[in-house]
């Protein structure tokens, strides 16, 4: 089985037309570690220059992945939050300022958010599953996680359909209104899930044999460099914390 898959992969390689194959990007496991490290840096030294350096690292990674537009968008949001905290909140009355405080808190944890955006935007679900299998996450958890990721867009769509339909019926009272959204939504999601479960069972997801993946993942020199830089930032961050 495994040998077969490998041979098909090699054929695809020789024809050089495999759009979904990884083309020199980081290993998903490296991206997961980076996300964790960004959280550690932010909670070791919130609002410090270390967080900024860490964000800079992600900006470089985004540019290497050819997503400069996203860098500008993220930076614009960050600058917006910082301007709000620095210039707008001080001139507002304290009562209104408190209202905006949580947005400022968003500025503190922004590097983690950037790391998460990087993970999501540059990793396909297939790559992610391959990585989780490689670090021996239990299969049940992987299946559930994949189902969760698959259902997010479906729930949004279902929700808008159900809301449109319930508008026609004009339900009265909060209780009835919640029922009219909730019951069809829950039924929809659980029946779609049952169909999906039947489909994946038919494709042999419960087969206990070793699973193979279309995506070949592995550590490369790039992973080593990025991880070394990230660990160095974290080490500097801890050193700074101990010193002060």
């Amino acid at each position, binding site marked *: 089985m495994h040998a077969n898959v490998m041979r098909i992969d090699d054929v695809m390689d020789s024809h050089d037309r495999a759009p979904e194959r990884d083309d020199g990007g980081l290993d998903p496991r490296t991206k997961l570690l980076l996300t964790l490290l960004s959280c550690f840096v932010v909670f070791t030294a919130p609002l410090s220059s270390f967080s900024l350096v860490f964000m800079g690292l992600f900006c470089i990674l985004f540019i290497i992945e050819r997503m400069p537009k996203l860098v500008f968008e993220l930076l614009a949001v960050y600058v917006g939050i910082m301007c709000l905290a620095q210039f707008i909140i001080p001139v507002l009355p304290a009562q209104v300022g408190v209202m905006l405080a949580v947005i400022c808190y968003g500025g503190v944890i922004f590097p983690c958010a950037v790391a*998460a955006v990087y993970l999501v935007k540059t990793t396909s679900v297939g790559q992610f599953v391959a990585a989780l299998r490689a670090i021996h996450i239990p299969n049940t958890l992987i*299946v559930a996680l994949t189902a969760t990721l698959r259902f997010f867009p479906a729930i949004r769509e279902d929700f808008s359909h159900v809301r449109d339909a319930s508008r026609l019926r004009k339900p009265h009272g909060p209780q009835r209104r919640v029922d009219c959204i909730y019951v069809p939504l829950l039924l929809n999601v659980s029946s779609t899930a049952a169909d999906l479960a039947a489909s994946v069972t038919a494709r042999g997801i419960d087969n206990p044999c070793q699973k193979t993946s279309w995506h070949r993942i592995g550590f490369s020199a790039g992973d080593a460099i990025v991880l070394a830089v990230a660990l160095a930032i974290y080490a500097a961050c801890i050193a700074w914390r101990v010193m002060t």
Partner: protein
Amino acid sequence: MEKSISSSSSSKKMTSRDAVMVGALGALIIAIRFVFMLLGGLSPYAWFSSHFIDAILIGPIFMLIMSKVRKPGAFLIIAVITGFVFLAATWMIVATGIIGGLLCEFFVKRANYRPGFLATMGFLCFNLGFLGDFLPLYITRDEYYAASMSTMPPAYVDALYQLVTPETLIAIIASIVVGSILGALFGSRMMRRHFN
């Protein structure tokens, strides 16, 4: 009747079939938490009360998962995935989520996957597992306080920090307790009326 509402796989352990169901309904739970967390961005008061609304709205989903899967592990998986999705906000949700999820599994198993007092206790633990959402505000309090003191007017920072007190945390926990009881009642009622 018990047969008809449980999922069709009959093994004692979770199968992939159950995992898909858990993942799908778990996505709904995470979506609700996410929406109210974003709405919480409007003001600290909205943020602090978001768990109360979460608990009420998640009640029916909790009861549905409980009656459909009827195997240990479902809520622990959802707690772990929730923690993972909110990793960007804080890693502490993973830690509290695992503790809450384990306690929840314990109670729900004792309840034999039927609504009632024990299931409500399980639901309460499940909701308390999301308390990690607030912990960084308390744990990084001093750093954040010092950092905001340097950028914002002291009067304003003090007004904010009057909110970050142990009393507030107790009030939040109390609201989660009340919300969980209401959510469990709402959920059992909806199960009885629409899903049996």
